[in-house]
């Protein structure tokens, strides 16, 4: 690899979410909570969802870590409200595809702010940072469907 594009990684939108994360805090009415950590780097989140009637009514998180992991989970929580479980699953899949370099997935407008993270796919060692929240989401969905 020759020169890498730091600009594509550290976009203003990402840094803005890192500094002022959305939906950060405890969700007392949560129906599911998943703790995900990357022991290698210490990134850590607890994703809390209130799921009622097969729909995500509220999403919050508590966590600490690098700008990529924290911005990604901040963006994620702001895209979850009102989504059906299948819909949320689809979102997680498209984002994961985007992280693995799928350019079609990166064009999906439904990803919203999350598209700003497309550049992470060029930094292989950082992809797991971006996926931390999504791994938690998929785990939460699995746990919820298993309960029903």
């Amino acid at each position, binding site marked *: 690899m020759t020169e890498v594009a730091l600009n594509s990684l*550290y976009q203003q939108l990402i840094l803005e979410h890192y500094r002022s994360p959305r939906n950060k805090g405890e969700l007392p009415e949560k129906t599911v909570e998943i703790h995900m950590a990357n022991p290698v780097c210490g990134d850590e989140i607890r994703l809390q969802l209130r799921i009622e009637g097969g729909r995500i009514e509220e999403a919050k998180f508590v966590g600490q870590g690098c700008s990529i992991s924290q911005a990604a989970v901040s963006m994620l929580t702001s895209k979850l409200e009102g989504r059906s479980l299948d819909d949320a699953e689809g979102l997680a899949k498209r984002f994961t595809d985007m992280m693995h370099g799928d350019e079609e997935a990166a064009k999906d407008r439904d990803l919203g702010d999350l598209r700003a993270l497309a550049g992470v796919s060029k930094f292989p060692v950082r992809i797991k940072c971006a996926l931390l929240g999504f791994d938690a989401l998929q785990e939460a969905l699995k746990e919820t469907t298993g309960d029903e």
Partner: protein
Amino acid sequence: MSFDAEVVRREFPTLDQTVHGKPLVYLDSAATSQKPRVVIDALSDYYEHGNANVHRGIHELSRRATVAYEAAREKVANWINAVDPSELVWTKGTTEAINLVATSWGLDNLGEGDEILLTVMEHHANLVPWQIIAGRTGATLRYIELDDQGRLVLDDLDSVLTDRTKLVAVTHVSNALGTINPIERIAEATHAAGALLLVDGAQGAVHTKVDVQSLGADFYVFSGHKMCGPTGIGALWARKDLLEAMSPYQGGGEMIQFVHRDHSTWADVPHKFEAGTPNIAGAIGLGAAVDFLGEIGMDAIVAHERELLAYAVERLEAIDGFRLFGPTALSERSAVASFVMGDAHPHDISTILDAEGVAVRAGHHCAQLVMKHFEVAATARASFYLYNTTDDVDRLVDALGVVRKIFTA
């Protein structure tokens, strides 16, 4: 001949390359050092011309391999001023050496009510084996705490050490902070309490001139790959009588004298602890590494690292928002700068530095207790070695300027 880092640097082929289009600045030697040409040559020469198993054959190649392998042991034993080469047991590295002591010495000598004294500064390699052995023997773990400069709190050492203390395990130099510990003082107190002292020399053997006869440790363990040698080779040093009294670590070929149906007798030390075909090439490579370091001279290397550290600390501390961990007195620390900067997470710092061609480590440095002590999840760590120059420090400082630009924009 006076020391010239620019000249030394040319001996390390890995350093002569670009990364992401920029000349590489390698500041991660505390994780593993680069290898000089002579070490790489020693490895390929062994495999091209000398490869055979050791202590087994009558044929010429086997004889040559055995001579080279044992000559390397002698070189490395001399390097740390051991009384005799038989005091030096080859291991995969520091981690295996500690596990060897924990298992061989620990299982025989520890029991309910006994205490192992560790420090909050330890690398996981000098914590987890003791946790495992404490679990198996019923021994208790106790800790020496850190002060706000990341130094061991030793004021109450005499009361922390009791007649229950059987072993003290402490690092010579902290990999996460750079703190150099007063081993002689700890050894004196440990022995006064009737306990043994294990010193983790993974960093200490790299950045200090080790003399096991004056240091006072009962076990000194270190890795080859951090001191210009290959990976997969390291050593345990202990006094011969101590090694002789210990049970074997692993069973197999090489470590036996006679094998019967129901029991076996052991080979003499150090071979008693070296079951199976050893890392012959690795040992020969480490021998070449200490020859290389010996020619330059440890005094010159330490002096160069001190100068570089002083320059680095001065330049780094001038950066807005830069927070350096570890002792403020440079005489109490080795050439490691562990830091955080503003609200830029260490992983972001490391990614940005990498894009600028500067390799540093980010994370907990296998020292999660140190991170907890300072209430940080991670730090970035720039570590310096004999081949680093003031230019490398300047490149680091410039690259940190890019971090600032991105994170304060």
